[in-house]
């Protein structure tokens, strides 16, 4: 039943090469940059969880254990490509130029967090919460590229649970029918909140959903950044040059809770999580770099200190951002607030006055 789809892995969990590495993997400047980005993502992610625990932001979806996938995608997309992410994409968003303050603003309950300032992210979609719907938006973006004859690629991400939704399958179908320049990255992290991968779908792989849509699909070890980079590079080149869409299933593990509102100990055992930590991506790349003589404890300490300082500056900037004025809730519902609804602005302004006047009894 299992079609013979490619599966790529270069590094063993202890960082040992398992096969001949791709030529670009001897660029240690590149690899240490990728490593820095993975460490930065993890430290930022830890900080975001801590901010939620202390009530300074709202619910947050941790990206712990997914760093290799996001960093690989972000390092390979061109600035003019468009990212259409889901909600566990801190790693790739940071590489697109979305700043930490913006990510904290978003999860901290402020729409300004999706008003990305960096021009690289100017056309990127904000985080998508309704599962799998973003896959279709990416196909729309890719359709626009195709109509205009542009060599740009739409990259969209989702989790393993999202592949069960009609939106995902309709997206694969139209991408195949029209040979759209789109790359679907499935972060198969084994858990859709409490539902494990084995009861999510009866197919042996999620990548094989590509076959029914007539597009290319393959699997990759999502904890091995060399493997993800290698296959993502191929996928982007393929899509960019009109050779059709790709579905890349990255096998990983959600080391954290689904969100800060979730408690994963209710549905999965400690032993499984302990084993998953053996496979995790940051340690793996660090071990490889150390084995190549380009990384050591001194560099590690300096990097961590540097990244922590960067995260801390972002937190301070986020906390200084202040709240949007209440009137801003009307500013972007329509390009111009309809005069027919003018009265509602006044009603809300009156409500504000009433609350500030201490007349509320909540």
């Amino acid at each position, binding site marked *: 039943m299992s079609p013979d789809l490619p599966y790529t892995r270069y590094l063993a969990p202890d960082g040992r090469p398992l096969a001949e590495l791709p030529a670009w993997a001897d660029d240690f400047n590149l690899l240490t940059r990728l490593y820095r980005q993975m460490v930065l993502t993890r430290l930022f992610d830890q900080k975001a969880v801590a901010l939620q625990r202390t009530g300074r932001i709202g619910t947050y979806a941790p990206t712990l254990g997914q760093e290799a996938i996001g960093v690989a995608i972000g390092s390979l997309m061109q600035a003019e490509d468009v990212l259409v992410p889901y909600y566990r994409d801190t790693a790739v968003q940071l590489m697109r130029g979305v700043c930490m303050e913006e990510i904290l603003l978003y999860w901290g309950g402020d729409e300004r967090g999706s008003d990305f300032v960096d021009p690289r992210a100017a056309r990127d979609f904000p985080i998508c919460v309704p599962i799998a*719907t973003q896959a279709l938006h990416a*196909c729309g*973006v890719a359709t626009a590229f195709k109509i205009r004859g542009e060599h740009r690629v739409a990259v969209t991400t989702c989790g393993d649970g999202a592949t069960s939704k009609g939106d995902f399958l309709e997206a694969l179908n139209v991408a195949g029918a029209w040979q759209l320049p789109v790359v679907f990255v499935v972060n198969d992290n084994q858990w859709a909140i409490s539902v494990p991968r084995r009861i999510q779908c009866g197919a042996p792989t999620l990548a094989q959903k590509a076959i029914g849509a007539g597009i290319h699909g393959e699997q990759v070890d999502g904890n091995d950044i060399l493997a993800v980079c290698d296959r993502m590079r191929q996928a982007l080149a393929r899509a960019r040059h009109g050779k059709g869409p790709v579905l890349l299933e990255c096998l990983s593990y959600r080391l954290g809770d689904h969100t800060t509102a979730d408690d994963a100990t209710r549905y999965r055992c400690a032993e499984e999580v302990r084993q998953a930590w053996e496979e995790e991506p940051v340690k793996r790349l660090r071990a490889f770099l150390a084995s190549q003589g380009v990384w050591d404890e001194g560099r590690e300490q300096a990097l961590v200190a540097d990244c922590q300082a960067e995260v801390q500056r972002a937190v301070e900037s986020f906390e200084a951002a202040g709240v949007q004025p209440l009137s801003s809730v009307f500013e*972007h519902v329509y390009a111009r607030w309809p005069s027919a*609804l003018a009265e509602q602005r006044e009603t809300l302004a009156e409500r504000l006055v009433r609350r500030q006047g201490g007349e509320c009894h909540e």
Partner: protein
Amino acid sequence: MSNGKYTLVEAVNLALHRAMRDDENVVVLGEDVGVNGGVFRATLGLREAFGFKRVLDTPLAETMLAGLSVGMAAQGLRPVVEIQFMGFVYAAMEHLVSHASRLRNRTRGRLSCPMVLRTPMGAGIRAPEHHSESTEALFAHIPGLRVVVPSSPARAYGLLLAAIDDPDPVVFLEPTRLYRMNPQPVADDGRRLPLDSCFTLREGRDLTLVSWGASVHESLQAAAALAERGIDAEVIDVACLKPLDLDTLEASVRKTGRCVIVHEAPKSCAVGAEIAASLYERVLPDLHAPIQRVAAPDIPPPLYRLEQFYLPGTGDILAACETVLDYA
């Protein structure tokens, strides 16, 4: 078309040609809209005139159509997507409600969604099951959307051009019962009609008939019958259900003191209820009689043998007019 006269569906077609000529970002997509020219022929000739890159025959998947349009619009295209019948639009709802209507707001204006979703609406053409819906209230409830229903060829032309121009998502509902009725003169002059105004089709001082879509036709017939009896009815085509031009409705009902609202959607929680409630908030002291609503009952549209009784007819409207006129 003959002698500059167009049916409503021909006027839609005329506007689409015009919009695609004027703006290369306008793209038409949907099931059967290309080679076949649409099941109602609303997109006839577009493929030949503007090519397969701008007139897209799509796979048969309404969720996909709406989601694709969101992505295209966010890239600066102006997709005009056809859903073949309103009964099939529900698969597109999530993208309209959770994405199209909110993209501008959630990105503080960084991205927007200038798309138009066109779909035929309404009963009265002896169509099969699921082809006779009037569920406009579902859309009118959603912040960030505009909902437009033309009731004449000229308004179909001017409102559709304005909808395509509009920087925000518009749901454009075309009454099938009017598609091929009474060809009327339409000037292909590119003139847009406002998307936030009612149209007063007939002025009068004795009572106000408020309607939209196909029911405007029966409302005008009722007004003509009343005129023969010396009763002077004002007829207002709401046309834009979201946002609602309450000022025009308020001014009319202040003047007449009597109001009958006519629509073919089921009565409960329909746009007629919103209009009645808003008018009560504004003009209660000026009313000479309770506002009446003439609507379909709260049932699914029956299969076509009984649909004529489901739809409000001229006689039903006249009966409601009697009620407000006779109210002591």
